[in-house]
């Protein structure tokens, strides 16, 4: 005798996800009023998260009130579009809402980067090497150390980095450009910019160690 079909007789197959996530996926996968209601509910959730995140990061922005709320609406709307487009990629590794919140958090970061980019006053490619020690938190009273450090790093940059790595290093380290703003400026991705910076750090450390400024265990220059 053939085994009974577990889906026969009106018994539903087990959900692929936890019940709450399954409900979200079902709702958003349908058409008609149920889907519209689901989209509206999800948008409300995303808007709440966007507002909270912008509030949490308000120190990075010089805007408040309606402008800040406008950014929250933009982030929620863009996140909703991304979630709908990628719904088929949700694999149930987390709750659906955790997965969805990730999109709106990323959108808030992108909006903050764009805001910085449109309001920045310092050129991204300005090369004022005297800024470097201050960026690293070096003691302003240690003039000799500051001069030596800036000179050594500048030489290591000149001799070891590719033009792209140099561009990224100068923008982020010397000019304090946020990575998400640089992503927009260079038409790149966060991953590519981070990789360029990661490789630059590794190369510079090796060069400075080879020249006796740093060693493999701890800094020892004084």
């Amino acid at each position, binding site marked *: 005798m053939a085994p009974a079909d577990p889906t026969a007789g009106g018994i539903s197959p087990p959900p692929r996800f936890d019940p709450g996530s399954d409900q979200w996926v079902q709702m958003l996968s349908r058409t008609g009023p149920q889907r519209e209601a689901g989209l509206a509910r999800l948008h409300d959730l995303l808007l709440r998260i966007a507002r909270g995140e912008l509030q949490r990061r308000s120190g990075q922005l010089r805007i408040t009130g309606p402008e800040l709320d406008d950014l929250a609406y933009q982030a929620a709307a863009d996140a909703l579009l991304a979630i709908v487009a990628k719904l088929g990629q949700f694999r149930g590794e987390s709750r659906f809402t955790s997965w969805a919140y990730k999109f709106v958090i*990323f959108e808030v*970061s992108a909006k903050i980067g764009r805001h910085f980019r449109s309001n920045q006053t310092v050129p991204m490619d300005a090369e004022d090497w005297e800024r470097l020690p201050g960026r*690293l938190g070096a003691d302003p009273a240690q003039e000799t150390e500051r001069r030596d450090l800036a000179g050594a790093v500048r030489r290591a940059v000149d001799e070891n980095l590719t033009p792209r790595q140099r561009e990224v290093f100068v923008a982020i380290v010397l000019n304090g450009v946020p990575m998400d703003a640089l992503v927009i400026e260079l038409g790149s991705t966060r991953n590519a910019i981070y990789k360029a910076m990661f490789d630059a750090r590794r190369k510079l450390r090796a060069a400075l160690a080879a020249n006796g400024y740093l060693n493999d265990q701890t800094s020892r220059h004084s």
Partner: protein
Amino acid sequence: MNGWTALDRFLRTDPRDVGCGEAMELLHVYAELADTDAPAAQRYPGIAAHLAACGPCGEDFDGLLAALRGTAE
């Protein structure tokens, strides 16, 4: 901390660092584990290394964790 020590710390890289792409891909899984006090860093050491080194991804992680904990507002 003098300038050389700070520079040394800044330039150090962790070979376990998975980069932004993988960290962003699994950030919801990692944050949910962290939210339940599960050993997220032990399970995903490459993501932990990345979040410690990458300011923007670390910020996103903090934001997502705050959202999961209902402290975003």
